[in-house]
């Protein structure tokens, strides 16, 4: 029977899961039209006046400062989001308390809220005459209209990414592994560091990456609270909008392309780190 001429023997090799060709075409087509093509157009536009113009558009002190502010604040906010997001996910999965479902639902609000609304709300709270801002003034801390404000806004939008990435992992973490660790004499801290953290680290890195990526590109919530002082609290996305306002499309595209490259490089590095950690 091994040599029998079944219909499949003549045609293409049969796969158990059908439809590779069709689904591959649809997905790559969609990706190309919606993601790759616009990005390619942007890169092309940025180089339309030649490489020197591209370099000149970027080699501006104000632009470089904006890059520094954006990357540093996105990184810091992602780290803070990772810490507090993990805590929040922990509380939501491990404890049963009144209002838990409400808080669980509220975590998603930053996803749904127009970010400009969040920015205005945060500015109102943290401005020197706001509820929280007024409390911080005597301590000499000003949040609104400083880089600190950018961080606050980015934590606001980044937190749900971490919570939603880590929560399912914590929910699935079997209680008996923790019990086993406890019976073997581990302290709570040791259980957390040696049993729980290794299990949820990949998800935590994923959440961190998403929060960071979102922070790099965030615009709406930041511009209201940041004050947008050049060299100090001006972010890259805002610079792009400013360039567009001045009809300098090439300059905007150049900054956008640089932003794309930086983001892509950093996400690659994080991905690599994650793969390395997972392989261990």
């Amino acid at each position, binding site marked *: 029977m091994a040599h029998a001429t079944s219909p499949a023997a003549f045609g293409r090799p049969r796969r158990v899961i059908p439809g590779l060709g069709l689904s591959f075409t649809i997905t790559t087509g969609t990706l190309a039209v919606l993601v790759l093509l616009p990005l390619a157009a942007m890169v092309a536009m940025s180089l339309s006046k030649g490489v020197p113009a591209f370099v000149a558009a970027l080699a501006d002190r104000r632009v470089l400062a904006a890059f520094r502010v954006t990357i540093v604040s996105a990184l810091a906010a992602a780290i803070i989001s990772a810490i507090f997001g993990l805590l929040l996910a922990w509380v939501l999965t491990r404890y049963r308390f009144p209002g838990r479902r409400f808080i669980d639902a509220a975590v998603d609000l930053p996803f749904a809220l127009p970010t400009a609304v969040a920015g205005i709300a945060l500015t109102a709270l943290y401005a020197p005459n706001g509820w929280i801002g007024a409390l911080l003034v005597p301590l000499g801390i000003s949040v609104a209209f400083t880089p600190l404000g950018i961080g606050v806004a980015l934590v606001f939008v980044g937190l749900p990414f971490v919570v939603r990435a880590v929560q399912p992992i914590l929910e699935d973490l*079997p209680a*008996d*592994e923790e*019990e*086993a*660790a*406890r*019976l*073997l*004499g*581990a*302290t709570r801290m*040791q259980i957390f560091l*040696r*049993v729980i953290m*290794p*299990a949820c680290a990949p998800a935590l890195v994923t959440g961190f990456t998403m929060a960071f990526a979102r922070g790099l590109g965030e615009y709406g919530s930041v511009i209201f609270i940041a004050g947008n002082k050049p060299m100090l609290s001006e972010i890259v996305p805002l610079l792009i909008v400013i360039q567009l306002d001045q009809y300098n499309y090439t300059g905007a595209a150049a900054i956008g392309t640089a932003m794309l490259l930086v983001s892509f490089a950093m996400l690659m590095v994080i991905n690599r780190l994650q793969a390395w950690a997972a392989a261990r």
Partner: protein
Amino acid sequence: MSNTAAIEIRGISKRFGNHVALDNVHLDIRPGELVALLGPSGSGKTSLLRIIAGLEAPDSGQIMFGMEDASRRHAGEREVGFVFQHYALFRHMTVFENVAFGLRVVPRARRLPRTAIADRVTKLLELVQLGWLADRYPSQLSGGQRQRVALARALAIEPKVLLLDEPFAALDAKVRKELRRWLRALHEEVKLTSVFVTHDQDEALELADRVVVMSAGKVEQIGAPGDVYTAPASAFVHEFLGDTNRLACHIAAGRVLLADGGVLGRVEAPDGEAIAYVRPHELDILPAKDGSAFIRHASTFGPLVRLVVGFGTANLDVAMPVERWVRLGIAVGDRLNLAARYGAVFSDPAAPAAQLLPEVPGTMFAASICQQGGTQRN
């Protein structure tokens, strides 16, 4: 007795909501013995094990480890080794790291040096015959191997007591039997006071020095495997330990009568309603053309032939050696009479049984049974 018991369980009660998991349980576990907590699911055996380990707090009662009240100690300070039903190995650690875990988390002042830890882990892995798997991850092991890693990990901290929760339940039949023998041999070697939970009577009877039969949060009987089997303290214990046939009957003037007047045998017990149990191998069959029973089904399995005999509305299990079955020369559908060679009669289900004896050796009981389902199997 408290100075001889390794673990003394004093009046432990525990409820979960409205469910009473444990109801005033007393139990002494002697140093170096292997005790089985045997019972159906929901009998409280796992709760008791978890309370001994300190994973669960009792509502009332005390657990004494030697002369010391363990209730004051956290689970991590009780020096118990615990093997979980699903092993609970740390999935992101190698076999070696799993076994070393209990040694690595010791505060630095008391921790063994790195090389001593490695030595101990290597020895333990040799003890459980898994030295060659030290660098594997739990997901790469078979169930039996995981179980042995879990055991090595529990033994690494040199516990005073080893607790095992359904240690063989998740394994297939052949591995289970091997591992059971192996664990018994290991116990002979290390002589560690051990308690294991099981719902499998074969496992309990084969492995344990003493068996604690539990039901509905209470201890029904404590005894050596032979004793609980041959002299059950209650109808529950008899029924739970091995296959048996249950017959509703009443006792009149020392005779055990079935519902329609057939005589099952003699017994020394007061008159009244009772339940008689006859195990499959205690029933004899005698072929007879006008017999009151007939063979519904026969299966040969190893040295025994197992019959399902239709008797009135009930089905009874009968077991006999293959040779005897061959000599009788009968087949499915043939009629026959039944006789009980031996049995247990419970006038009170909560008290020990009276012995059922044949009225005259070889007497038939030829009456139908109007009892709800004559067969009880476990």
